[in-house]
């Protein structure tokens, strides 16, 4: 039976007790993200009591909700007001076959999608939170206003921390209006390097693209016979045609065949790219590599040259994000990817692999020693007894 505190003070008492016994705990919202990060040890602790929307003021662009509020509920509510989570968080369902999960789970994974290049990541939209720390103290940080520099920005720390610092009970997010319309310009038939060069060129153009992805030939979900670069334009419908035309004029000299997806097709495509479907559908270990956009293609070339040919891969963020899927290997290709990612000043995250594999080779890019030591001190400033999600981030804590 899992522990299920009914309110923050019970929760705090429970964590103080666990800290005194150094007894590890796993934080469970809806249980959708257990396959992310290293497997963690400990008794399950349900956050289900901390659910429900507390405040939603569309005109103020702000929403406060309990951490266990379901993502689906939030998205339906925002949609009804023509608004959305602008950072376009990935739904891990395609990768893990899991449910969409909770708001707290989103924050814990720091998820952000294709629109990251324009709208920022989850960390850029987390205005404030309430939590219980690993010491069992109820702490709040930030606020509900857009612009706030009062005290340290602890929101950045908890975003993407996989619950290893504190158990969130309530989060406040900046919400933005949905674009009135969208369209996607496809450029087909260039090789990978040319396709990504075209995306980088588009990224410097005034057209203000909100998605810049490249799909190699044959990949689902498009199943096209040729490489495709996809450029998403969002905004008032009246602006889309001229922005598209400017891009075509800019990119035409480099060759390729142009095609335009209408609003429905465009939404469908970016939904699947957001959820990493092109690699999720391939059977194997999945990596997410973040690096400077100019390095994306070279990185994949070097991976191939090292004898680790991916069975599927695609690029987002104009080449700054590479998704790769490999056939099962003894170390999930960590021995190839991590040193390469380091040499490109990037970071490689093992997003999908068996529990045993993630425990053995780890999930995140190893850090230089001074940074690793600082990271540990930050962890211990919230959770000195290492009770929250022990082992989730790294073997040391």
């Amino acid at each position, binding site marked *: 039976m899992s522990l299920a505190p009914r309110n923050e003070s019970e929760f705090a008492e429970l964590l*103080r007790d666990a800290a*005194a*016994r150094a007894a590890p705990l796993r934080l469970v919202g809806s249980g959708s993200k257990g396959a992310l990060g290293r497997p963690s040890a400990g008794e399950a602790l349900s956050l289900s009591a901390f659910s429900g929307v507390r405040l939603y*003021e*569309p005109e*103020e662009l*702000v929403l406060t909700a309990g951490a266990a509020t379901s993502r689906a509920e939030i998205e339906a509510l925002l949609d009804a007001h*023509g608004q959305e989570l602008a950072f376009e968080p990935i739904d891990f369902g395609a990768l893990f076959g899991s449910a969409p999960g909770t708001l707290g789970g989103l924050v814990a994974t*720091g998820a952000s999608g294709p629109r990251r*290049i324009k709208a920022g990541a989850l960390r*850029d939209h987390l205005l404030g939170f309430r939590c219980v*720390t690993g010491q069992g*103290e109820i*702490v*709040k940080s930030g606020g509900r*206003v*857009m612009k706030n*520099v*009062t*005290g*340290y*920005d602890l*929101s950045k*720390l908890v*975003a*993407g921390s996989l619950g*290893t610092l504190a158990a969130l009970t309530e989060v406040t997010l900046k919400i*933005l209006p*949905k674009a009135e319309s969208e369209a996607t310009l496809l450029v087909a038939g260039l090789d990978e390097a040319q396709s990504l060069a075209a995306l980088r060129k588009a*990224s*410097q*153009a*005034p057209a*203000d693209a909100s998605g810049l992805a490249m799909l190699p030939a044959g990949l689902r979900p498009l199943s096209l016979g040729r490489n495709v670069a996809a450029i998403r334009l969002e*905004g008032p419908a*009246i602006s889309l*045609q*001229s*922005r598209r035309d*400017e891009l075509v004029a800019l990119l035409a000299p480099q060759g390729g065949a142009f095609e335009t997806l209408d609003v429905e097709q465009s939404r469908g495509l970016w939904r699947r790219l957001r959820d990493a479907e092109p690699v999720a559908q391939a059977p194997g270990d999945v990596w997410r590599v*973040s*690096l*400077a*956009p*100019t390095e994306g293609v070279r990185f994949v070339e070097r991976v191939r040259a090292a004898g680790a040919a991916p069975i599927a891969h695609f690029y987002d963020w104009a080449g*700054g994000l590479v998704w790769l899927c490999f056939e099962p290997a003894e170390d999930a290709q960590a021995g190839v990817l991590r040193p390469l990612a380091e040499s490109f000043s990037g*970071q490689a*995250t093992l997003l999908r692999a068996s529990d045993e594999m993630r425990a053995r080779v780890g999930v995140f*890019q190893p850090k*230089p020693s*001074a*940074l690793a030591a*600082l990271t540990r*001190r*930050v962890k211990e*400033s*919230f959770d*000195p*007894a*290492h009770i929250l999600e022990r082992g989730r981030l790294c073997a040391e804590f």
Partner: protein
Amino acid sequence: MPLLMPTPEPQILSRRDEIVSRLRALLGGERVIADETARRAYDCDAFTMYRALPLVVALPENVAEVSAILALAQEMNVKVVPRGAGTSLSGGSMPLEDGILLAMGKFNRILEIDYENRCARVQPGVANLAISKSVEAQGFYYAPDPSSQIACSIGGNVAENAGGVHCLKYGLTTNNILGLEVVLMGGEIIRLGGKRLDCEPYDLLGLMTGSEGLLGVVTEVTVRLLRRPPLARALLLGFASVEAAARCVGGIISKGVIPAGLEMMDRATIDATECFQPCGYPQDAEAMLIVELDGTIAEVDYLVGVVAEIARNDGATTVRASTSDAERLRFWAGRKNAFPAVACIGPDYLCMDGTIPRGRLPEAMLGMEALAKKYALRVANVFHAGDGNLHPLILYDASMEGEMERAEALGADILRLCVSLGGVLTGEHGVGVEKRDLMGEMFSERDLEQQMRVKCAFDPQGRLNPGKVFPTLHRCAEFGAMHVRGGASPFPELPRF
């Protein structure tokens, strides 16, 4: 209430000559300022109400020197105060009499401009505006634009998480930087982020931004560059009441329009600016909005129409849309000169920086009016209406006995009012020493203790910029207290600080 700073430590003051000579051994003679007259130039930043003569000023010019200075400071247990261009409005770089002032002005080079990756690597002493200037010929710019941007340094912007008038659409500093090189107390050099977008846990880059020089010293910044939109147009909207103007702001945003800039000025500020530099602001308006829209031509022209219609429906008494860039800049001229204009009628003013939920603006204005009456002072308001960031300018006369103290007390009450309306103490100027003693209005002891624990993770001796942000100083050991049962410390192998 007078500002109390940590008492200068006699054992440091008495070792001043030794500290100076150790610094000179690292930097040479010229870049260590020990002479009192020369040090006097550094005795405050743009928060000029309080001053202190620094123990010594060090001017490093590379990361190895910063590292060596911080290692020395740790070894000799000396405090260090980092300083950029000295434009902080909250006293973030106010010196300490027993502390080394680490002036980063010699870090003034743009190291790399990388258009393909849309970023630039710069040293922290580079002025904010200099970044945009260096890339404008290619059609790019760096988005955050604090009003001091001609002078303020990017390193200081990182320390304070500086904003500007375009934050609602383009974000603050924290949303526009990708990487940092940081030197920790003790001299360790770490790199956070880089030219990539993903940030693996923990996001120390985000934590460092806005940490007011208490966690580490920034020695390099990678900033995002944005493409300058092809067109920007502004609307000048006049309203018969603050409520009507506030309603219009809500109407614009609920229509799904996110303007690049959305500023409000009240009657007092309009009068002051029109007196200082007439730029045709509506004389019959109780409140005025400047709404700037940017993007492609088709988009901007369309949105100008949308906003104008919303304004008319909300009873705007003046609706003017710029038809040339010169006209747009004229609309802005008064707003940009609002502070000097107010200073003209002041003669002195105190600039506050609270943020409130935008919808509470009418209450905030009424509350401020009542408070101003109580303290017998005048308040003029400029308001980043899009993001709720309020800049009440409290007018006073420093030559009148007791007026400065009254102005400070009124300012504190205004910030309390902001917090009571669901807002915060500071939107973009930082806590520094100015709002330090008000932190308890917004945070509980527990909240502040957690922030101080984070500080301890970076600086266990509490030597970096002490006396700022937190109303009380604690030794890090005080936070090590664990809840121990049965007399045994849990996890005995863990290091305790």
